[in-house]
C-alpha cells in the first residue's frame, strides 16, 4: 500500500448503532479521545430497525427478571435525561380470548417483583381509551412503556461526543487488524466512498458492530459465539392507538404495536438466519404479522400498510435454540483476553432500552485498561438537543411548519419536510467533513417515509440540492435510484390494497416517464432515430 495515512486515538469504536454512539459519548464525557468508524451510516443495522420501544421491563417479568429490572432502571434514566427522544405514551398489556389465563393472573405480581408500576384497567374502559382493541379482549394492564426515537438518540449522542472532540467516520469499513504480540497495533479502515484506506492506531479497540460483531472479531483473530435472529415490522398508514399495545402472553410473533408519530409499527417476527446478507421483509412475514396482531387489534386486517423493515438481532452465547426468541436478549461484554488480545473488547446483544448501560460497562473496561479514573457521567448528564437531529421525529416538521407561519417551501408533502430542514441536515454533515447522500437525508428526516414513499419528495429534494449546487452531473439520478432501491426493500412485501396503487403510481412516474430502469444504457449517447441501429426498412 502506497503510504496509507495513519491516525492516532485513544479508543477506536467499531459500529455506529445505539451502543457504539452511546459508548463514544460516554468515553468523550470522561475525556477520552475516540474515533467511531461505521461501515454504513448511524443506526443502519438493528438499531434503526426495531420498534422504537422504551421497555418498562414488563415484557420480561415472567421469563427474565434481571432483564426486566435493567429495563426499568434504564428506561427511567433515559426518560429523565434524553426526554427529547421519548414520547411517554404509556403502554397496555392486552390479553384476548384463548390467551394463557395463568400468565395473565401472574402478570401483576411478576411486575411488582421487578418494581414495575402496573395496574389493571377495566376492559370496557381500556376499549374506550384505545378503541382499536379487540372486542374479545379479556384483560388489560397499564405499564410505563414509552416510545423512543433511536435515530435521534444516536444522532444526538454522536453530536455531543463530537463537540467533545470525538470523530465519526461514516461509510468506513474495517478490513484488517495489524497485531503486535497480544496487542492490536493498528486497524485498517477503508472509506467506501473514496476507496482509500487509513490505519487507525488506538490504544484500545471496542467492537460494537452489533450483528456484525462476530465478523469483526474474527478479523481480529477472536471468536464470539453468536446467532442471528431476523425480525420484521410493518408500518401502518395512520396511527391506530395512542399507547404501546403489547400482547399479554409469553413473547411471541407480532405481539407489540408501537405508536410512532402519525403511524403505528407492528411486529415482530423472529426467524433464525445464517447470513446477514439479503435481509428484507417477506410476504409471508407480513401476512403472519397481520394475522397474528389482528387478534389483538382487528382493524389491522383492513389497515393500509406503507412499508416494512427487517433487522437482525445478534444473540450471544446461545446454541441450539430453535427460533432465537428464547435465546438471551441480554447483552454480553467480551474482553478477549482468552483470545490472546489485550486491547480489544466486544459489546453486543442487548436492547435499545439498555444501550446506555451497555456503553457504561464497556467504557468502564476500556478506562480501566487505559488507567483513566474518570467516572461514567451518562446516568447523570442531560443529552443535549442538537438542532440538526430533530427532524427524525414524526410530527416535528408539521409543528414547525405551523409555527413558522407556513412561509416555508415544503419538499415532502406527506411528512411536511421543508427545504430548510434538508439544508440544516446537509450543512451539518458537510461541516463534519462528509459528503451527504439522499439516503443520508432520508435517514435524518422524514423524507421518503410518508405514504408516497419518496416518489415525489425524492424528486423535489434532488431538484433542490442541484439548484443549490450540492449535486452535480449525474449524481442526483444515481441518488434517486439508490434511494428507491433502499425504500423498495421495505415496500414489496406490503403491496396490496391502496398501497399497491401507490406503488404503481411510483413506477409510472419513475419508470414510465423518467425511464430510470434504462439508465446506464444510452441515456446520453443518443442519436437521431435514423442512426439508431434498429433501422426501419
Amino acid at each position: 500500500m502506497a503510504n496509507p495515512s495513519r491516525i492516532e486515538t485513544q479508543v477506536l469504536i467499531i459500529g455506529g448503532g445505539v451502543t457504539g454512539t452511546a459508548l463514544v459519548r460516554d468515553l468523550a464525557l470522561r475525556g477520552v479521545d475516540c474515533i467511531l468508524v461505521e461501515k454504513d451510516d448511524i443506526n443502519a443495522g438493528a438499531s434503526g430497525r426495531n420498534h422504537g420501544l422504551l421497555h418498562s421491563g414488563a415484557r420480561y417479568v415472567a421469563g427474565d427478571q434481571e432483564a426486566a429490572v435493567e429495563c426499568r432502571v434504564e428506561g427511567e434514566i433515559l426518560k429523565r435525561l434524553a426526554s427529547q427522544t421519548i414520547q411517554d405514551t404509556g403502554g397496555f398489556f392486552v390479553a384476548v380470548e384463548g390467551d394463557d389465563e395463568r400468565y395473565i393472573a401472574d402478570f401483576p405480581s411478576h411486575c411488582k417483583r421487578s418494581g414495575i408500576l402496573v395496574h389493571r384497567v377495566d376492559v370496557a374502559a381500556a376499549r374506550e381509551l384505545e378503541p382499536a382493541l379487540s372486542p374479545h379482549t379479556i384483560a388489560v394492564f397499564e405499564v410505563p412503556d414509552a416510545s423512543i426515537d433511536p435515530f435521534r438518540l444516536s444522532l444526538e449522542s454522536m453530536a455531543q461526543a463530537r463537540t467533545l472532540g470525538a470523530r465519526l467516520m461514516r461509510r468506513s469499513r474495517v478490513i484488517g487488524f495489524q497485531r503486535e504480540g497480544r496487542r492490536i497495533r493498528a486497524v485498517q479502515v477503508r472509506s467506501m466512498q473514496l476507496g482509500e484506506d487509513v490505519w487507525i492506531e488506538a490504544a484500545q479497540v471496542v467492537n460494537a458492530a452489533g450483528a456484525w460483531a462476530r465478523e469483526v472479531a474474527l478479523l481480529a483473530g477472536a471468536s464470539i459465539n453468536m446467532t442471528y435472529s431476523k425480525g420484521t415490522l410493518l408500518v401502518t398508514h395512520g396511527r391506530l392507538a395512542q399507547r404501546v399495545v403489547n400482547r399479554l402472553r409469553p413473547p411471541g410473533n407480532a405481539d407489540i404495536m408501537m405508536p410512532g408519530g402519525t403511524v403505528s409499527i407492528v411486529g415482530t417476527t423472529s426467524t433464525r438466519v445464517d447470513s446477514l446478507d439479503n435481509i428484507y421483509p417477506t410476504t409471508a412475514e407480513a401476512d403472519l404479522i397481520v394475522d397474528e396482531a389482528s387478534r389483538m387489534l382487528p382493524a389491522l386486517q383492513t389497515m393500509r400498510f406503507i412499508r416494512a423493515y427487517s433487522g437482525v438481532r445478534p444473540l450471544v452465547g446461545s446454541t441450539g435454540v430453535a427460533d432465537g426468541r428464547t435465546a438471551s436478549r441480554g447483552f454480553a461484554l467480551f474482553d478477549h483476553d482468552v483470545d490472546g488480545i489485550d486491547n480489544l473488547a466486544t459489546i453486543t446483544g442487548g436492547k435499545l432500552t439498555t444501550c446506555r448501560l451497555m456503553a457504561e460497562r464497556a467504557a468502564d473496561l476500556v478506562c480501566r485498561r487505559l488507567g483513566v479514573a474518570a467516572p461514567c457521567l451518562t446516568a447523570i448528564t442531560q443529552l443535549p438537543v442538537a438542532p440538526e437531529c430533530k427532524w427524525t421525529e414524526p410530527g416535528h416538521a408539521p409543528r414547525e411548519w405551523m409555527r413558522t407561519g407556513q412561509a416555508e417551501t415544503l419538499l415532502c408533502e406527506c411528512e411536511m419536510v421543508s427545504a430548510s430542514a434538508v439544508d440544516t441536515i446537509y450543512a451539518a454533515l458537510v461541516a463534519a467533513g462528509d459528503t451527504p447522500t439522499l439516503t443520508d437525508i432520508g435517514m435524518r428526516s422524514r423524507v421518503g417515509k410518508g405514504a408516497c414513499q419518496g416518489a415525489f419528495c425524492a424528486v423535489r429534494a434532488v431538484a433542490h440540492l442541484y439548484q443549490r449546487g450540492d449535486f452535480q452531473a449525474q449524481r442526483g439520478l444515481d441518488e434517486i435510484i439508490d434511494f428507491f432501491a433502499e425504500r423498495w426493500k421495505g415496500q414489496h412485501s406490503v403491496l396490496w390494497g391502496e398501497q399497491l396503487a401507490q406503488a404503481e403510481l411510483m413506477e409510472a412516474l419513475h419508470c414510465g416517464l423518467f425511464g430510470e430502469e434504462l439508465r446506464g444504457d444510452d441515456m446520453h449517447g443518443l442519436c437521431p432515430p435514423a442512426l439508431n441501429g434498429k433501422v426501419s426498412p
Partner: protein
Amino acid sequence: MTHTRQDTFDVAVIGAGMAGMAAALFAAERGLSCIQIGNGGGILFASGLLDLMSIHPLAERRKWGFPFDALAALALEQPQHPLARIDATSVRTAFNAFVAALGKAGLPYAPLGKANSDVLTSIGTIKPTYGVPRSMIAGVKALAQRPPCLFVDFHGLREFSARQIVSTLGDSWPAARFQRLQFPGTEAVPELYAAHLARALENVETRARTIDLVKPLLGDAQAIGFPALLGLEHSVEVHAAFEAGLGLPVFEIPTMPTSVPGLRLLMALEAAVATRGVSRRHHSTVDSIVFDDETATIGLIDSPGGERVVARTVVLATGRFMGRGLVADRGHVSESIIGLPVHQPTSRNEWHQRDFLDPTGHAINRAGLLIDDSWRPLDAAGNPAWPHLFAVGSILAHQDWMRSKCGSGLAIATAWAAVRQITRQLYGDCDKAGEP
C-alpha cells in the same frame, strides 16, 4: 343519431382515463350513441407524451427507434400482448384519429411519422416516445443537435430545476445554460404550482412581463426550454407568443405529475367527446351491471335518482390499480366491477421483484383480463364472459406499459380495435357512419 330503442345507448364506456376517452371518442366518430361513466382524474397523471412502443423485449432493455418495427417484433415474440393483436395500419389509423381530435380541441401534436422521438424529462433523463405535443417538439430537435440552449425555470417550482437538467446533461450538451427567474407577482410565495403559472401566462400582460425577463438572457441561445407551463386552454397562443417575443424556438419540458400537459390533455379530451355528442356521467360510479341477451343495465351511484343506464354494449376501460379497475387484497387480484377472473401470479410473493428497477419488470404488472380475438374478456372457463362486454387499455393482461413505454398506444389502439368490433357487431361490416 338513431337509437335502436329509446334511451338505449349503443355503447357504455366505463372509465375516463386515456383508454376510456379514446373509446368514447372513436365510438362517437363512428356514429355510435355513447355514454361515458367516470371522471378523468387519471389523465392528470399523464405527461402529454403519447408513447407507442419503445422497449422490447424488456429483459434486454432493447430500445427501438421505430415503434412499428417494435410492434412487428412483439407480434412474433409475444402474441398474447394486446398490441400484438392489432395490425400496424389500424394502430396508425387510431393514433392519427386521436391526435387529429386533440388538434381540433386546441392541443396540437407534431405530425406523426415513423420514428420515435427522444424527449428530455425534468430530471434530465431522456425518454423515447411517439406522439409529441407541438409545444415540446423544438426540444426534440434541440436534444438531437445540442446547440447553445437556455433552460429557464422559476423560484418556488419545487420539482423542476433547470440547473439540474443542465448539470445532468453535463459534457453531452456543453452549450446548455440555465437561469432561474422570479415569476412576475410571486415574490413572497414560497411554493408555486405549474398549473397556476400556466393560467397566469394566459394573461397577456403577465406573459409580456415574463418574456421581457427572459429576453436579456438569450445570449447565443438558439432554443429555449421551459418547464411545461406555457398556458392551459390557450397553450397554442401562449407558446406562439413566447416564440414570437423571444425570436427563437421555444420548447416545454414534461414535468412530474400532476402536470400541465396532463391537465391540457384532460381538457382537450373532455371537449372532444363533448362536441361529438357523448353523454357523460363524470361523478358517477358503477354499482352493478346486469346483462341480458340484448343489453346491459348499469346501475350508477352518486347519480341523481340512482340512475340506470341501458346500453347494447359495454366497454370496460377502468384501468389497473391506480384507476381502481383492479383491486388487490393480500392474496388475490380482482376485477372491481363485474368480478371477472384476473390472470395473475399464483401468490403475492411473486407479484414484485426484489429489485425495484429489475429490467424484466414486476409480474403483477402483467396481470389483468384475458380476452378473445374480439376484445371480449373471458370467464373462468375461457369463454367470453358476455357477448356484449369488451375490455380495453391497461386492464388487459400480458403487457407492462410502464416498462415497454406503450401506455398511450395500448389505450388508443385497443380502444380503436374494440370500437371497430362493436360497430361490426351492432351494424354489420360497415361503420354506422358509412365508412368502410
